[in-house]
């Protein structure tokens, strides 16, 4: 009996469905090219209620034309979609839910739309499956969240569907692979259709349909920090980071988060770092986007290699002129890849350092603040100690942990912040805002960005806390308090105890690190303005208009 049932099962339903979908869009297609003027109708023909759709909203580039067309679909025809969006950046990403076209959502990050996201959730307009980190969400596209349709974006396509993404390859090959090899349908908006693409980032046989967008896709310069806004406190913290972490542990492979704190570190390498004789000893290999503030370190010979998650507007010509440092294609331009760079940031680098908005007494940290559901993005992928790592390095071994024979090294995970943020809000708090926000959103656990037991170092303007040396949770809390300044957390510890922690090496103040506080001035920065960065690049960096002051 059972045998008969097995024999009648159809093993090619997805393939049949794909053929059927492509048949239905045939009136809108010539070759593989969809009619941009009838994009909404084409999507209504292509999609079925309840479909799982991966919509390319990356950290940087956005399939904005397709998002707009999707948001404009008739909810009678297309409804109850399940969207997978790594970064919810556009208004249209949430319009889709407001209009009833989609109902369920799995995502990783909602930075620019975080307030509206929290509101839609409270109004019951969107059902959130889970909030992921980037690699988690991509991974699930190959396991239990396989999409039926992908709406992607690229710079150029040829008539065979071969795609050229330019420097911002980001998430496209990963999503395309998940869909193309599971008999889903890939639809790609491109800025241009050309006879021959400069290089093939995604082969044409992974691509079903292309459409020429009436305007180039949106791209944000998220990783550009104007050195003009770096102040003395950031410089002091950067000096302590260089001496107290990079030099002490011999950090050669690393990732930097976004922010003025880490930009300051990048800009001190050619000056303060050079003075300390650290060139060649630290900061040689990076998993990092092409940060304009890294240009001076690259130009002065600090940097051997950089692999990028995505591109950065304005750095195209510079990167193309430095192929020994950056990964570039046969066409000469940058090739980035978010999932691979996230993996590199997870397993191949010894240190992650990032700014935090809030840190609690146990060093748990979060960028979620009240009324905002911002998600995680990629920081937790890099901001943890991966237990799957086996290759040793001096830095990793310098944080040796475990009982023999199960000894292992540890990833350096550093959090850097001033004790009070701008506006006078304390960075160190009793309870993270993430706790009530998680409760309000009915999350089973609070959305903590980086867990306290993964944090090895905390840097503030007061000093460096070496949390990995703490032998108990109580000691970890004391080390955090010792650098938490005048915040309520900082007031939990007295001077005598701080003295003991300094003696035991759990805490270092500037004088313990031989950092001269008086030298923490802007004159120590290798570049003090965007013009200086252009100068360092020999005129190869073309800053986006908003960063120009000339």
């Amino acid at each position, binding site marked *: 009996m059972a045998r008969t049932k097995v024999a009648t099962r159809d093993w090619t339903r997805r393939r049949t469905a794909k053929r059927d979908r492509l048949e239905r869009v045939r009136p809108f297609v010539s070759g593989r090219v969809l009619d941009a003027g009838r994009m909404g109708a084409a999507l209504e023909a292509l999609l079925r209620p309840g479909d799982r759709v991966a919509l390319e909203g990356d950290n940087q580039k956005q399939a904005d034309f397709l998002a707009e067309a999707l948001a404009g679909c008739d909810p009678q025809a297309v409804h109850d979609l399940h969207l997978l969006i790594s970064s919810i950046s556009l208004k249209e990403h949430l319009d889709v839910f407001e209009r009833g076209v989609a109902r369920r959502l799995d995502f990783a990050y909602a930075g620019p739309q975080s307030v509206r996201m929290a509101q839609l959730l409270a109004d019951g307009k969107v059902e959130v499956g889970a909030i992921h980190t980037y690699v988690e969400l991509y991974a699930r596209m190959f396991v239990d969240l396989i999409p039926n349709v992908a709406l992607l974006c690229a710079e150029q396509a040829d008539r065979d569907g071969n795609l050229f993404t330019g420097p911002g390859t980001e998430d496209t090959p990963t999503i395309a692979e998940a869909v193309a090899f599971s008999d889903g349908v890939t639809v790609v908006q491109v800025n241009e259709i050309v006879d021959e693409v400069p290089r093939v980032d995604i082969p044409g046989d992974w691509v079903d349909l292309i459409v020429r967008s009436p305007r180039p896709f949106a791209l944000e310069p998220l990783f550009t920090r104007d050195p003009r806004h770096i102040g003395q406190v950031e410089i002091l913290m950067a000096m302590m980071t260089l001496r107290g972490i990079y030099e002490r542990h011999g950090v050669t492979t690393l990732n930097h988060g976004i922010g003025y704190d880490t930009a300051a570190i990048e800009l001190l390498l050619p000056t303060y770092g050079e003075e300390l004789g650290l060139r060649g000893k630290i900061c040689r290999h990076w998993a990092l986007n092409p940060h304009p503030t890294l240009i001076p370190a690259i130009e002065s010979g600090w940097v051997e290699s950089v692999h990028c998650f995505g591109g950065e507007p304005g750095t195209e010509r510079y990167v193309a002129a430095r192929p020994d440092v950056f990964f570039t294609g046969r066409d000469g331009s940058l090739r980035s890849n978010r999932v691979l760079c996230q993996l590199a940031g997870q397993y191949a680098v010894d240190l992650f350092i990032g700014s935090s908005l809030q840190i609690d007494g146990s060093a748990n940290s979060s960028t979620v603040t009240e009324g905002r559901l911002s998600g995680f993005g990629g920081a937790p992928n890099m901001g943890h100690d991966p237990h799957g790592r086996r290759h040793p390095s001096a830095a990793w071994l310098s944080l040796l942990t475990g009982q023999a024979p199960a000894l292992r090294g540890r990833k350096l995970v550093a959090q850097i912040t001033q004790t009070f943020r701008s506006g006078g809000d304390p960075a160190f708090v009793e309870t993270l805002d993430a706790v009530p926000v998680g409760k309000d959103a009915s999350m089973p656990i609070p959305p903590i960005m980086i867990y306290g037991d993964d944090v090895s170092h905390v840097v503030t303007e007061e000093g460096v806390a070496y949390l990995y040396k703490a032998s108990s949770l109580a000691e970890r809390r004391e080390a955090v308090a010792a650098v938490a300044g005048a915040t309520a957390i900082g007031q939990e510890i007295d001077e005598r105890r701080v003295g003991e922690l300094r003696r035991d090496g759990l805490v270092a103040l500037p004088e313990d690190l031989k950092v001269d506080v008086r030298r923490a001035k802007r004159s120590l920065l290798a570049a003090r*303005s965007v*013009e200086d960065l*252009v100068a360092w*690049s*020999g*005129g190869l960096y073309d800053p986006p208009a*908003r*960063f120009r002051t*000339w």
Partner: protein
Amino acid sequence: MTVTEWESLLDRTSFIELDARERAKALLDEGTADELCGPFDRIESPWLEPQGVVPQADDGVVVVKGLLDGRRVVVIGIEQAFQGGGIGEVSGAKIAAALSLAARDSRAGTPTAAVLLLETGGVRLQEANLGLATVAEVCAAVLELRALQPVVGVIAGALGCFGGVSIAAGLCTTLIMTAESRLGLDGPEVIESEAGIAEFDASDHPLIWSIDGGTQRVRTGLADALVLDDVTALRSAVAGAVRQGVPAEHRSRRIGELRARLEAVDPAHPPAPSELAAVWGRPAQSEGDQG
């Protein structure tokens, strides 16, 4: 700009990175600087504390007397880090008094020129009318001194010089700017909020600098010299302007020329910023004019 000019940026000591006191001293001959009415005299604004603003003991204006290439000058520097360089009752009075004292000394046989470091958004909002009144006094004092000795204005930073103080800038004997600096009566944000984003988009940097930027102001003759943000370059430009002395006729007195310029522009069909120099009959200067 060419590649080599960009590279020369790195060898410089930035002028605008210095605070107002350091900037004033950087212009003067070594060992000659003498600050008047300094922070230890504690002449600060009485209007800020009641409005929840911490006052500054020099009210954000630094007055330093000394020698520049051996000539007597008073350098008056506005500190842009305090209240965006906004001028209040006390800081304005300090500027006006310093200029008047220089005029008195000049009349008494001790010629004293003035250098104004104008990094300011204009009148301090907290001191509205008092600030406006004091800017009028500053303008009167510039007119008094410039008849006797040159008054040299310097705008070096991206904050620029706006509001009432931009009128004082327009009265200067010589006005020196950098490519990053800006000069205008109403700031971009003010224009946008008053007249709408279609009139002026305050987030459009290329647009702003194409109108208010140092390069355009010099190209169209509303400022005199475009200099690199570098202590040595600015010092030599200022010294040169002081040396030139008082011109036969100041720019602000050339009424006929200015009126002709207004008539040459049709507000309904304004020329593009790049065309303005030609419309006004001034040949566009080359980009290499960087001091």
